[in-house]
């Protein structure tokens, strides 16, 4: 990670830690939603940004996590701290299942399969009444009191408490993502993204790399889903439509796929911006669509990718060396 990224992360961390002391419930609520989207977008970035496996199913995994929590709470009576690992594992397994077609398909085809999966999961949540409660969804208890071996640790009741849980969870997930992309596995993902044939030829297990990317990506969404279910005290299928998946993709793309900070900043920006539209609220979806088109046509590498590119070329110019591979890049 570059120094700039570390500084940005530190500023963000300070801001998010200070927020509960400075802001009211509404602003805090928006930030909590932003943290959930940070987890979703960072997770998606593992599969798409680093490993190059496109997915429009992050919203479905988000929902599967939430419904795992709902079903366990209803049938087994478990609480948040049991549901969280369960949700992550179950969603990871679904991620593995989605990863299987990815072994044969690339690019567009994979994207379309993930759209089909997303739609099927939604229809399943709506129609499998006995398991999911249909359109009514399921009630999920609040996180409430947390005990360890009978000793009461703390209690999560207010929005402020929930916000802290979300912040800690987001921090943990971001840290895990950072460790993953800087591990050997992370470098294998990038190798697969850059040239799968070559990666296979030099002896990397591309099957393993792709499947792990999908599992990790889904598991992140599952974690966010469990938290969301307990925070909202319920799950309904309409909260996990393809629209959510598209939103997460947009956050990752606008921020910069394959950069570490991009999806984090993208998630925060795209959650907060619609709240600021005010009188323009009528046009916010229109603005969102146009923004997406402009972003992809003008800066397909995303805001951060763009900045990085500009800085690299400037550094090269400043150091007086011959511009690297692409002369047009240096003059930009």
């Amino acid at each position, binding site marked *: 990670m570059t120094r700039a990224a570390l500084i940005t992360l530190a500023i963000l961390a300070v801001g998010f830690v200070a927020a509960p002391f400075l802001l*009211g*419930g*509404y602003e805090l609520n928006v930030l909590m939603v932003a943290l959930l989207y940070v987890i979703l977008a960072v997770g998606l970035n593992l599969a798409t940004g680093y490993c190059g496996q496109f997915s429009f199913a992050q919203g479905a995994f988000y929902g599967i996590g939430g419904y795992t929590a709902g079903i366990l709470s209803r049938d087994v009576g478990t609480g948040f701290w049991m549901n969280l690992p369960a949700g992550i594992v179950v969603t990871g397994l679904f991620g593995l299942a989605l990863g299987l077609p990815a072994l044969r398909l690339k690019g567009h085809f994979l994207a379309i399969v993930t759209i089909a999966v997303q739609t099927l999961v939604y229809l399943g949540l709506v129609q499998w009444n006995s398991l999911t409660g*249909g359109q*009514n969804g399921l009630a999920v208890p609040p996180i409430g009191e947390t005990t360890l071996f009978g000793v009461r640790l703390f209690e999560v009741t207010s929005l402020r408490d929930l916000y802290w849980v979300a912040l800690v969870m987001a921090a943990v997930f971001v840290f895990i993502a950072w460790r993953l992309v800087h591990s050997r596995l992370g470098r294998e993902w990038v190798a697969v993204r850059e040239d799968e044939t070559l990666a296979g030829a030099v002896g990397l297990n591309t099957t393993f790399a792709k499947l792990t990317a999908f599992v990790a990506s889904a598991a992140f969404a599952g974690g966010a889903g469990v938290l969301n279910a307990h925070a909202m005290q319920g799950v309904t299928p309409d909260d996990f439509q393809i629209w959510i998946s598209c939103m997460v993709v947009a956050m990752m793309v606008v921020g910069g796929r394959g950069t570490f900070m991009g999806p984090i900043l993208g998630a925060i920006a795209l959650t907060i911006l619609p709240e600021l539209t005010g009188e323009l*609220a009528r046009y916010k979806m229109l603005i969102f669509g146009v923004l997406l088109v402009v972003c992809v046509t003008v800066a397909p590498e995303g805001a951060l990718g763009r900045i990085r590119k500009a800085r690299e070329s400037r550094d090269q110019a400043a150091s007086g060396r011959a511009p690297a591979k692409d002369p047009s890049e240096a003059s930009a």
Partner: protein
Amino acid sequence: MTNFSRRTVLAMTGAALATPSLLRAQSGGTVKIGAMLPLSGPASIEGHQVLKGVEFAIKQANAAGGVFGKPVELAIEDDEANSTRGVTAVRKLIESENVPFIVGTYPTAVVVAANKVSKEYGVPMLSGGSTGAAGTEANTPGDPWFFRCWPDSNGQGHDTAMAIVNTFGAKKVAIIHDSSNYGTTLAAQVTRIVSDAGGEIVSNDSFNVGEADFSTMLTRIRTLKPDAVYIGGWAGDGATIVRQAAGVGLRTQFVGSGSMVSDDFIKLAGPASEGFAVATLYEPSTPNEKGKAFGEAFEAEYGHSAGTLNALGYDSTSIGIEALRRAGESDGRKVQEVLNNGMADFPIAMGPAGTTADYNEIGSVDFKNFIAVIKDGKRTLSGA
């Protein structure tokens, strides 16, 4: 420099939050009230119709001098029919706009999630179209924070089923419903009551919202020769089904869900809409005096006759404004007290003559639905 411990800071933040909304609400020359409705996404058609009723109620209140001598101003939020967004919207309305009550929202699932939050703040919600029983069932009996001035979907399903069996004398009934919460619960209730009353359910089909072609399903239903077909769902789909039924030669008594009958429905379904019936909360030709006056004023203002969704938005908002007036100050808890106990004399536009905002202990007003039938391309009340 004073050193604040973390505990002190927390306590101070807590105190700041606990400051009564009264203090914060007194600024400005208007009295703000809140509305939260789905204004984008698939439920936006309904959301916009409810909003029209809300705006009309505010216009009337302001023409009559407003509240506390100040004009009423509407703070509106779009919940996108999404629970997460709905919770955010409620917090925004209460914290940033200091509203003493919120009219909202249409999807029942969003109501349930949002009302938990609004109750924490001590701000009551008045239904913006949500009819699902889950909305009021989530209330604590005796201390409701979600108020719906009309019967829930079970009541509607019951009245519809009775009309199918008694008014239309149907023995064999086919059920079609969309997979939304509204359509599913209504269909289940109609199925139950019709069976209890000795009718036979010959088929039960669901469809996904946005599906366009029903011809095969309707052809199959035609072979079952039902005496009546019940359609639970959205008005646009209802009109499509009725039109396509005529196209496949399925001619029988069609009965739809509450908000289906409107002038738009007649326009969209064309001649096929003849004889179509619904159990409805409101009709402009109502024997209810307040309802009649509302219908005439609404038509004079907008140039088209009022539908159920306009009427319920109007009623929820007028009740809220009157409760605010009676509470004497812009304080959510006081408004809730008035809504809970002090509105039984306030007449509303929906329901039979003499219906008032007399909420029962779970915040619902139960009355018998009208049966409206389309005759000669016009909406008429059956038996009225």
